[in-house]
Every structure is written in C-alpha cells, then in structure tokens.
C-alpha cells in the first residue's frame, strides 16, 4: 500500500437510507492525488453521507435486509456505483485496507474523542494499525505539532477549549498519515483566527483533501476546485472562483 496522497474516483454512486430516503443520486467525480476539493451544498444535500461513503463507513448498509415500509417485505440490493481510491475499488474485500488510507474528521468533536488523554486519543489510530511503539510516538508528536497542540499529550480532552478539541480531532486523523483526508464542516464554531490557522494548516498538508462546508470564503481560499451537491445530486463541478461568482447558481441551491 502506497503512502503519499491518494487519487479518488467516484462513479455513479447512489445511496438510500433503510427508511427509503434517497441521500445520493448517481454522483460522479474524481480528484487527483494531492488535489484539494471543496464540497458545497445546503443542509440535507447529502454532503455528510458522501463523506461517509468515501471513508468506507456506509457502503455495507444497503446489503443488509431492510424494508422501506414496515408493511413491505424485506429486501436487499447491491451498492450502486463505486468508489475507488488509488484505483482500488471499495468493496468488502478491500474496505479495511482502503479505510487505513482515509482519515475523516466529523463535525462534532464530542463524537470522535475516544481517549482518556490527548496523547491516548491521537495514538488510537496508529495503535490500531499495530505500528511499532517508536513509530506510534513519533506520529503522535508530529500530528500534535502540526495542529499546534505540541506538548498536550497528558491533558484531558474535556479540559480543552472548543477550538482545541477540533484540532485534537484533526490530529487524531493526521496521526494515521492518511492519503485522503475528509473534513465535515471544519470551521463551524471557530473564530476568525481559528479559521485562518486551520486554513493555513490544511494548506500545508500533502494529502488529498475533500472539505464539506457552508463556509464559502474558507473553501474559496483553500480549494481550487469545488462540487455543489443538492438533494443528493451533483449539480456543479468546476473552479471554485467561478462557482462562487455565479450568484444564481448559489441562490438556486441554497448557498446564498
């Protein structure tokens, strides 16, 4: 498995939740290794669902026996469309190896802090990958330094400020040295300085980035290219500057 930035390709990806709600309808796009891609769209557009697919956390659901209507018979259907990372298609056989290449940072820090101390939390991923102890320690140190939390190893997560917790979550993902990094609303709740520092930090990373956000200015500065998702459909894919300049497009899809 190669290290370094990962190339991403998504073809005709479709997904509905077990209650029948269609979250994604035939989404197709690609990102080159090292590219920074923005993902724009109103609430409920399916951005988070798409990120969960790219992280390899959702695809299995559709194969379960389920029913959209309590009265209807249960059924299952195949995953529709495909996601490929570095050319390898995400399927039950490859999912674990591919997940090791992807880092995801969810919107709410409380949902993803799993360690008793900052150091324990960041070390979770490297330890799960059974890296040798010196490598675990090095990756933790590097990740904390990258997010500006150097020396915080012994602190308790619940003593950190909101901004510090967000950076802790990012460190947790970075420690795994992902080729593809997915971020869901990374700037929500951050003050202007926090936003700026986060933007600079992400700009320094070598990994391929997909950033789902309402924060148009943030995405414009960080990501040369962006996608617009609305009601599960990909409605635009192009240079971020041009998309943001198109006020009619933004208005039509609840972004302005």
């Amino acid at each position, binding site marked *: 498995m190669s290290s370094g930035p990962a190339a991403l390709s998504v073809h005709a990806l479709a997904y509905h939740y*077990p209650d029948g709600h269609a979250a994604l309808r035939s989404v197709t796009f690609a990102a080159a290794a090292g590219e920074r891609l923005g993902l724009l769209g109103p609430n409920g557009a399916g951005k988070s669902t798409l990120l969960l697919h790219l992280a390899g956390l959702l695809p299995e659901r559709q194969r*379960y*026996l*389920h029913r959209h209507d309590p009265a209807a018979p249960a059924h299952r259907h195949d995953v529709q469309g495909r996601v490929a990372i570095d050319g390898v298609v995400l399927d039950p056989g490859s999912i674990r190896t591919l997940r090791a290449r992807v880092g995801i940072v969810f919107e709410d820090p409380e949902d993803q802090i*799993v360690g008793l101390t900052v150091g324990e939390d960041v070390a979770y991923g490297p330890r799960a990958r059974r890296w040798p102890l010196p490598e675990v320690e090095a990756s933790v140190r590097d990740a904390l330094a990258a997010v500006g939390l150097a020396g915080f190893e012994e602190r308790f997560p619940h003593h950190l400020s909101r901004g510090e917790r967000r950076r802790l979550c990012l460190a947790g993902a970075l420690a795994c040295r992902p080729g593809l990094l997915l971020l869901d609303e990374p700037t929500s709740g951050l003050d202007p300085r926090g936003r700026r520092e986060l933007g600079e930090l992400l700009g320094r990373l070598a990994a391929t980035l997909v950033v789902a956000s309402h924060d148009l200015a943030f995405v414009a500065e960080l990501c040369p290219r962006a996608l617009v998702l609305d009601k599960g459909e990909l409605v635009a894919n192009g240079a971020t500057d041009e998309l943001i300049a198109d006020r009619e497009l933004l208005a039509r899809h609840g972004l302005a």
Partner: protein
Amino acid sequence: MHIPDGFLSATVAASTWAGGAASLAWALRAERSHPDRTPAGTLGALAAFTFAAQLVNLPILPGTSGHLVGGTLSAAIVGPSRGLLVMAVVLAVQALLFQDGGVTAYGANLLSMGAFGALGGYAVSALVARLWPGIRGLVAGPVIGAFVATLAGAAFVALALSASGLYPVAVVLPLMLSLHVPIALIEAALTGAILATLARWRPDLLHGLQRTGARGSAASGLLVVALAVAAFAAPFASTLPDGLETAAHRLGFSAAARPLWPAPAPDYAPPWLAASRVGTALAGLVGTLAAAALAWALTRRLGHAATAEPHR
C-alpha cells in the same frame, strides 16, 4: 447497598471474590459467543449512564432519597451477560474512584448487584415476559425482576455480613430484607419508569429480553424467585439459623470469627424475634403486591402491539 472495606472476613471476601470472578468469566465467554456484536464503546457508555443515573437522587421523604442501581435495567437493554459486564465496570469505577463499595468487598458487591441484579433480575424478567406477552411484558418483567433481584441481593449481603462474624443471621437477615422492601420498590419503579418511556419512544432498544434462549432464563427466574421467597420464609424455619451457624462452623467461616451470640436453641425464640419474622414476611408480601401493582400501572398506557421488530 455497596459494602465498604473492612466488614467482610478474609474467608468471605476471598470466596465472594472467587464467585464474582467466576460470574464475570462466564459473562465474558457467554457474550463472546453471542451472534450480535455489541461494541465495547456501547457497553462503556451504558456503564457511564448507570453511574450517572445512580447520582440522581429522587426525594422520597424530606431528608431521604433513593436512587437507581440499574442491574436489571442494563440487562433488559443489552442482555444478561453484557448487563453483568456493565455492572462490573460500574462497581469497579465506584470502588476505585469514588470509594463507594470496598475493594475487598468488590466480589460480594458484584454478586449482589451484578449477579443477582443483572442475571437474577433478567431471569425473573424473562419469566414474567413469558407469562405476559407483548410490549407490556417487556416492561413489567424488569419491574418485577428489579424488585425480586434487589431483595435477593440484600439477602445475599446479609448472609455475607453474618458469615463474616458481624451479626447473627437470625437478626440481620430479616432486618436487611425489611429495610430493602421499600428500596426494592424504588428500584422497580425507577427501572420501570425509564423502560416504559423507552418502550414508547424506541421499543427496538429493549432487545435484551427479545432474544431467543429466554426459556432457560425463565427457568432460572423461577429459581431466583424461589430463593427470594426462601429468604423471607427462612426465619420461620427456626432450625435454619442454627443450621446456617453449624454450616458456617463446618465450612470454617466461624474459625475466623466466632458467632457473636450462641445460636438460639430450637425451642427458644425471643418474642421480638418472632415479631420481626412475621413483620419481615408481611413486608415481603405487601412489597410484592406493590411491585405487581407498579408493573401494571407503569405499563397501562403501552399498546398491546406485538414486540417491535429491530429497525435495520
């Protein structure tokens, strides 16, 4: 009741630790072979919830409050073996970080609140749920289960304290049981209140009792009920306290702590002792009727719909 350190004799502490460890080993093996996998994080979260729920004090009278212990509640949600695991972690955290329950007494506390609480409570819940099908039984079961399990646990604690040489069993057993009838009713009420609300909002979460294999549990439930009844009836069997003292002596318990007063001769019983026996039995009877009434009242508004299917 969390027994503190320093009241159990070395022998009782060691044997209850062995019993507790054995029940834990069983639980770990049983849940490993279970087809559904419950993530450790979920059980840990349930343990944290149980711990926090125990902090919420419900005022009963001015100056007195009660709180939930939660063994039967946990078992109703995640099943008996996982319920025991949850209680084991709750009790360990309480003992080590909050000095609620002793370290040497951990085995006894685990048996009392974990084995009797989670396993025994589950067994009785399964029995009741079999006799009372549908969603009402899924809530009424744990109400009765929590009541019986709390009393069985209290009887166990009384026996442990007595075997440690602190008090004669003829005194402590009826006393503990009588004191625990209102406590058991509170446990039943709080357990039922939470489960009844849960049954309205998310019936799919009550899958602890919805598993197959409840038949064996129902049989165990009968056993637990029988034990609880025996605990209440025991003081009437005047030879029993002597029997227990003799058994304790033979097993070597009293070598560590001689009986504090001579076991009453079979044909002698101080009048107040007799009164306390009747009082205890009466308390047990009234309590059981109250628990049944509680179970009925808490489930009154639940639909008669069949068990909710797990939402996939």
